[in-house]
């Protein structure tokens, strides 16, 4: 046996042995108890790290779920199948969470809403609002530059021709990223079963709204008077529908002069 063969075998064998030993000693000495369940729960979660559950990502959320800090339905993005799977792993009965989706609370299109100036800056709503409060006269309205569209982790949002985002309800998981990303939080997370809402965010006085946008809520209160269930309140010139009380009778739809309040169950 040539010395080179012995040397190679000894050197490599020694190295392998040394590393194997070092790794096993380290694994023993530095052993950190990681609950295997966390791995299982993490596997059930969609893994999109969308943050809808309020944690830094799926693995964090899984750890919270195993530790009991978060309920199995904390994962907004998953929908029922995920919640049942997580509940099965944790052996906990999961309250069937009502599916939530995003809705766009603005109807000020290019044509209906007035523009103060021509904005040619960075194509991002957050950037646009820094430039004199955005190019839309209405300081509450949607600027239509698509920040929510680009940031949606599930590609459920697309930009309509009229300059307002459109929600694809099949893909939307209600994770809330669009709501948190939009500088004016135009998209809002709403229970799927909610019947009616005033699709506007403007707290301006009716006179101002009428001048700058022909689709905004004037805060006139006609819908409030018309509603048999007393489900509508006027909060600083903006009508707010209480989902629990509203039965979706639709009396308020005709009363509204600008059509701001309408049925969500398109």
């Amino acid at each position: 046996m040539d010395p080179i063969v012995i040397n190679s075998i000894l050197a490599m064998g020694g190295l392998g042995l040394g590393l194997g030993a070092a790794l096993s000693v380290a694994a023993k000495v530095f052993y950190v108890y990681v609950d295997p369940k966390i791995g299982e729960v993490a596997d059930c979660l969609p893994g999109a790290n969308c943050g809808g559950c309020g944690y830094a990502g799926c693995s964090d959320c899984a750890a919270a779920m195993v530790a009991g800090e978060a309920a199995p339905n904390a994962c907004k993005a998953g929908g029922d199948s995920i919640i049942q799977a997580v509940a099965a792993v944790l052996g906990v009965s999961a309250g069937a969470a009502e599916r939530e989706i995003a809705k766009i609370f603005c109807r000020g299109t290019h044509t209906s809403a007035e523009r103060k100036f021509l904005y040619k800056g960075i194509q991002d709503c957050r950037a646009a609002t820094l430039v004199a409060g955005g190019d839309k006269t209405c300081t509450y309205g949607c600027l239509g530059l698509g920040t929510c569209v680009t940031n949606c982790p599930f590609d459920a949002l697309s930009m309509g021709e009229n300059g307002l985002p459109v929600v694809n309800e099949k893909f939307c998981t209600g994770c809330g990223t669009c709501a948190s990303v939009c500088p004016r939080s135009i998209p809002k997370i709403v229970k799927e079963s909610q019947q009616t809402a005033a699709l506007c965010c403007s707290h301006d006085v009716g006179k101002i709204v009428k001048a700058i946008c022909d689709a905004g809520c004037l805060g006139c209160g006609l819908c409030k008077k018309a509603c048999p269930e007393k489900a509508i309140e006027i909060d600083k010139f903006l009508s707010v529908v209480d989902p629990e009380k509203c039965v979706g009778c639709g009396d308020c739809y005709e009363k509204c002069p600008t059509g701001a309040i309408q049925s969500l169950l398109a």
Partner: protein
Amino acid sequence: MEDYFMLIISAIFVNNILLIKFLGNCPFIGVSSSMDSAKGMAAACIFVNVLASSMCWVFQKFVLEPLSIEYIQTLAFILIIAGLVQLVEIILQKVAPPLYRALGIYLPLITTNCMIFGVAVLNIRQDYTFMQAFVYSIATAVGFSMALILLAGIRERFIVGKIPKLMDGFPIGLITAGMMGLSFYGLVGIGK
């Protein structure tokens, strides 16, 4: 001392390990899409690169050369690097959990990072002394992190820019890296 300075300048700027020597751009394009992942990767790379190249240098000089089995260098180095990365991962998880959570996901990625292995082999092929190898590994890792963070900064602007759909992602990342490389390439005259 003078040639250490020249070594550092040439490793960081002139023949930057990433843009000129092409070592280590497997994660370069992938990780540089967001700033904090780039910072995490850069820190992990500096830490592991220094450790790995010094251990490899010692193994080469005290085991491979005396036994005259230099030909097996590739196997020995990559075994050391893989073992080292796994060791660092285990120790970090226990000793510094927050640091582990920040660097954690990048550590397994580093084993297949061409830069760490490349620097270890370059140290031997340019037969540096231990100090030179140590300084060279720090400098290349700093150069790598600089290029990575610069590109991450640029790529974060892409989200707001108007990038044609089909060029989005890797293609535009590569082209940007090329443009950045051009500016580094201008410095080629300085180093040796």
